């Protein structure tokens, strides 16, 4: 399938010499939800800003819907809606005026019925005549989403859409994003909430120091890199793991009351039966056992740490 967004060898070095993007290549399929994860300053916002025309790239090409976002910028930008990270609105305008203004700016004819439905979907209809300065932070963020959707874009960039919003609004946003996807909108979101990516994204990309280090389907990354843990609550605490249990690389926790065994979620042979058998032979009893699997957050932290470790060691 032809990607709706195609980024090739994109580089951005700011005037101060900071390399924000380093040879980034990325394809996004039509209709997918793609989550871009990365620590602060990793280059997420720069990447989005470059595609949307806010940042001029140093080199590389970007295509949106088959249109070069620099040479054929009008056609490309008509397809794109952007919700930036910072809440930036014309505070003295009304909700109705500012959303209609955004639609006009993108060259679309007035469509009262569409804007009315959009504001209703975002629970802003009752506030249509209110000045933006009178709205709460969550409402302002929804106004920004309404502005981004006002011209019916096929691609929506959401830069940290749920940063600083309460749990209920976050859930509402997720529902909104799912609803947009059902209508065929391609969504690229950056987030610090790994749970958000895990919950919604078809694929995740991890960016670190301007480089994309992993792009994978969310389910596949969980399968490939996910770990499971077996926690055994011991009858008697122990000071150290017996040598006879060395092959399982167990960890002691809770002041010797728990034994933790970490294993690959994809392994057919987990090693649990043999572990329990050996423990029985050694007379190590346990009162309870619990298994858990690692979250995307664990995987993300692991990836970022793994990538940074060699450099840190080198620096040390």
């Amino acid at each position: 399938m032809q990607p709706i967004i195609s980024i090739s060898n994109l580089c951005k070095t700011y005037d101060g010499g900071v390399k924000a993007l380093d040879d980034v290549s990325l394809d996004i399929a039509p209709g997918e939800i793609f989550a871009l994860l990365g620590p602060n300053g990793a280059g997420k916002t720069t990447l989005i800003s470059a595609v949307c025309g806010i940042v001029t790239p140093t080199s590389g090409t970007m295509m949106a819907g088959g249109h070069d976002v620099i040479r054929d910028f009008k056609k490309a930008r008509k397809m794109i809606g952007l919700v930036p990270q910072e809440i930036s609105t014309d505070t003295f305008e009304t909700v109705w005026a500012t959303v209609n203004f955004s639609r006009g700016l993108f060259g679309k004819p007035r469509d009262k019925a569409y804007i009315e439905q959009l504001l209703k979907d975002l629970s802003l209809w009752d506030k249509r005549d209110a000045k933006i300065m009178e709205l709460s932070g969550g409402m302002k963020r929804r106004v920004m989403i309404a502005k981004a959707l006002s011209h019916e874009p096929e691609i929506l960039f959401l830069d940290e859409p749920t940063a600083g919003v309460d749990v209920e609004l976050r859930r509402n946003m997720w529902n909104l994003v799912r609803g947009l996807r059902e209508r065929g909108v391609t969504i690229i979101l950056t987030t610090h909430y790994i749970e958000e990516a895990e919950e919604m994204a078809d694929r995740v990309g991890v960016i670190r120091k301007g480089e994309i280090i992993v792009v994978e389907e969310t389910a596949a990354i969980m399968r490939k890199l996910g770990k499971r843990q077996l926690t055994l609550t011991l009858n008697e605490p122990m000071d150290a793991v017996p040598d006879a249990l060395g092959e399982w690389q167990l960890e002691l926790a809770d002041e010797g009351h728990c034994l933790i065994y970490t294993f690959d979620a994809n392994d057919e042979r987990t090693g649990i039966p043999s572990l329990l058998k050996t423990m029985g032979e050694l007379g190590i009893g346990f009162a309870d056992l619990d298994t858990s699997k690692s979250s995307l957050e664990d995987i993300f932290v692991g990836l970022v740490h793994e990538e940074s470790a060699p450099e840190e060691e080198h620096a040390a």
Partner: protein
Amino acid sequence: MNVRGVWALYTYEMQRTWRTLWQSIVTPVITTVLYFVVFGSAIGSRMEDIGGVDYGAFIVPGLIMLSLLTQSISNASFAIYFPKFTGTVYEMLSAPMSPIELVMGYVGAAATKSILLGLIILATANLFVDVRIEHPLAMVAFLVLTAVTFSLFGFIIGIWADGFEQLSFIPMLIVTPLTFLGGAFYSINMLPELWRTISLFNPVVYLVSGFRWSFYGEGDVSIGLSLGITGVFLVICLSLVIWIFRTGYRLKE
């Protein structure tokens, strides 16, 4: 051409005028009335005619030009600086609008406001003095040309400005003094030769002179020279604006 986009930006900017009617229109009109009270009635009644024109009527083109220059700069600089300040400029930069279309929206609205203001001042002046316009088409053309040129100049200032104080720096410290010294309230032919020569380096002299010619058929310099200098300034401002959008100077990171 994104005509709807230009229209959306233009009308959005014009709505701001109606929302801030007092600041945009009424304040400059009151200021002009005060000028007429002081220069027209109090001092003007003791002044001789200049080139056969009553002093009160003589200063009308200069007064209009004074407001036109300062308001064009102020309207356009604020229009682009405010979105930069609040961060809403992201929407302009990510919209399918070419630099020329953005300039048409912003500068068009700023120039329209200034032209309206100029016409209101002209109407107000008519209440105090008998103003005649010998070349009405030339008067309108000069009004439009000057408003557009100085709105472009204001647009550049708005992009360059890092703070609100810089917005008022050039209008207050450069444009207003140049206008006062540019023959708004006198003919530069009344000055000693040395000061007359120095005045010819002041670009506002050519604007005021050309505008006054459209009213009374006489100016301090020829109408061709006035038009030429205004045109050159227009080209310089346009070139700078195009360069700003090409390079993203102070607009894009």
